């Protein structure tokens, strides 16, 4: 259930990782009909975004 109303409201901070992860996934898919180079770059973006995402979570 949601938090009670007298405590300080905690809202998640903005993050660019969802954008990077989404871009990585799409680029990886784009590589299939075009050039697998894009798939490799996309996979690297995915890995980078996941690491960043988890790091952010640890700092909360």
């Amino acid at each position, binding site marked *: 259930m*949601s938090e009670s*109303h007298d405590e300080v*409201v905690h*809202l998640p901070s903005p993050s660019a990782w*969802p954008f990077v992860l*989404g871009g990585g996934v*799409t680029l990886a898919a784009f590589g299939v009909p075009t050039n697998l180079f894009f798939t490799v770059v996309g996979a690297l973006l995915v890995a980078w975004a996941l690491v960043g995402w988890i790091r952010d979570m*640890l700092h909360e």
Partner: protein
Amino acid sequence: MTTVDHKDIGVLYLLTTIVFFVIGGVEALLIRLQLAVPRNTFLDPATYNAVFTMHGTTMIFLVVMPLLLGFANYIVPLQIGARDMAFPRLNAFSYWLLLFGGILLYWGFLNGTPPDTGWFSYAPLSERPFTLESSVDYWALGLLVTSFGTIATGVNMLVTIVKLRAPGMGWFQMPVFSWMSLVTAFLILAAIPSLTAAQIMLLFDRYLGAHFFDPAAGADPILYQHLFWYFGHPEVYIMALPAFGIISEVVPVFSRKPLFGYPVIVASGIAIAFLSLTVWAHHMFTVGEGQLADAAFGLTSMTIAVPTGIKVFSWLATLWGGRIRLTTVMLYALAFIVQFTFGGLSGIHFATVPVDWHTHDSYYVVAHFHYVLGGGSLFAILAGMHYWFPKITGRMLDERLGKLGFWMMVIGFNLVFFPMHILGLMGQPRRTYTYPDLPGWGPINFAETIGAFIVTLAVAVIVLNMLRSLRSTVRAPDNPWNGWTLEWATSSPPPPENFVALPPITSNRPLYDLPHAAARVAGQIREVRWRTPMVGIGAFIFSEATFFGALIAAFLEYRTRSVYGPSVHDLDVPRTVVFSLFLFASSGTIYLAERSLHRDRQRGFLVWWAVTIVFGAIFLTNQLLEYARLYSEGVTIASNLFTTTFYTLTGFHGLHVFVGLIALSTIWLLGRRGEFRLGRRQVAVDAVSVYWHFVDAVWVVVLSLVYLLGLVL
């Protein structure tokens, strides 16, 4: 680019889908221009194919479904009194996948190879021999990307509604729109993975030489239709249930009466969701499924009319005796009720098998689903847009312009689609780029084209109204319609934290109870005991089960149908059974690891967790070695039907083991840094553990069906 606020993301959804709506609308206009007169040459046949394919795909995957999810994103957390969605960043991720997937879909269009095999891209037309260029690939890959986002939204929405309701809001104090969003989330998880599986099979056929839909190898292309419609029919309700939710909000507020039969409305929504998973083959009556299947699917399809009819009667009973305010919002809702019922009735015609045989693939079908999705869902969306516009933007829409837009929309819409019933019964086939000058066909088609332009003008009026309001300086009040649900209890637009304070919640109309000093006492709400991420992983596993279910269904269907080549006897069964024991044992070791962690024994946790990783790695290594052995013997995914399904099923399981190993290793590294001491973040460990148990459980099924069953029979 970095926002994670559900309201910002909701607005992004709405803006993005409006852009795609304009694109899909232009495609519709091109279709109508081509069909305006007989034997027209405005579009050549190939372009026409591409245009109607993109129109359907765009409107379903990039407009109606995400528009409704966008509303749910914005409104549901407000309605249930929450600060945000359960997983705000995952929510942002879903949105970006929609945008990027949409762009990927249109990439094929832009580089000259537009998808042109219809919105369902039936095999074998979509297979390599019949579609050489990459057009189908952009269709499949673009939709795979958006589908991942949709599944993530389904997980997120479900968890949000199950876990984040405000104190006092039990299941039956929940507004109907939120209820329907919950049911829709369930349907998304149950249905969309089936499409994902079909598209992956299609891509494997196209790129790896697999034989999923290749009759020459003994395969049955009808399997594609089954997998597609197992997704496709629930998809109709993914686009209709939230629309029912919007109407169930609007009708009571503008009749000044409580919704008639709230529990029945909710129950019928749930019934529709379950029934919709049992009707898919009514899209396939003409492929010849046999009398028994036809009768069964005809019956289940007709059964859906019962809960749907209950809803319509509930709305009518709500209107009955109410003080009806005929605002633009209400007009759209009333038009929805009439038009949707109309579309529902022609749906019953299609459930009647012999009628379906006659009207299949004619304009009767086109008329039917446009009444459901256009006259139904789209009108509900327009009702919702006019209803929530003041809340989202803090500005009121002009009623006169609103009503002008409404009447043009109603007239234009019905002028386009009503005559299609007649044309369909006269025999005009859908998806054909032109038609002969038969008596009556030309004038009726011409009238439809005029209707399409009236709809275009209506859209222009609606957009103009919105732009005008956005520029106006007059602020909308917090609750302009005297609504009763919680989104009207906060400012317009709401502050980032949504609410300063929530009113007490004792019914599904908290704002009505407020001045009426309801003597009701808040019921004791039983909280769902699972922690939030655990509900999330549970929902995710449910969607995974659908995905594996599709792969397993394909394997079983094709188990004995290979006409040549390798079979289960080429597999090394004893060896696989031995290495499976490592995987099964790892379920035990991960349990021991968790038990140590719960007692805060870090060392024991790390040791058992490491053993789990090693066991998983041993299993995966053996699988890779077996693949290597088979490949060296010339047994590849392209060998025959058996190897196609074998490699796909075991390969996807292996991929899940691989992902699981990455997750396990990440947890282990964090554990070594002491991130899980003293009960901190234990839920992350538990979530990974549950996922690992699921991967094990899938292997129990795969081992039994692929290796053991094959030997026994």
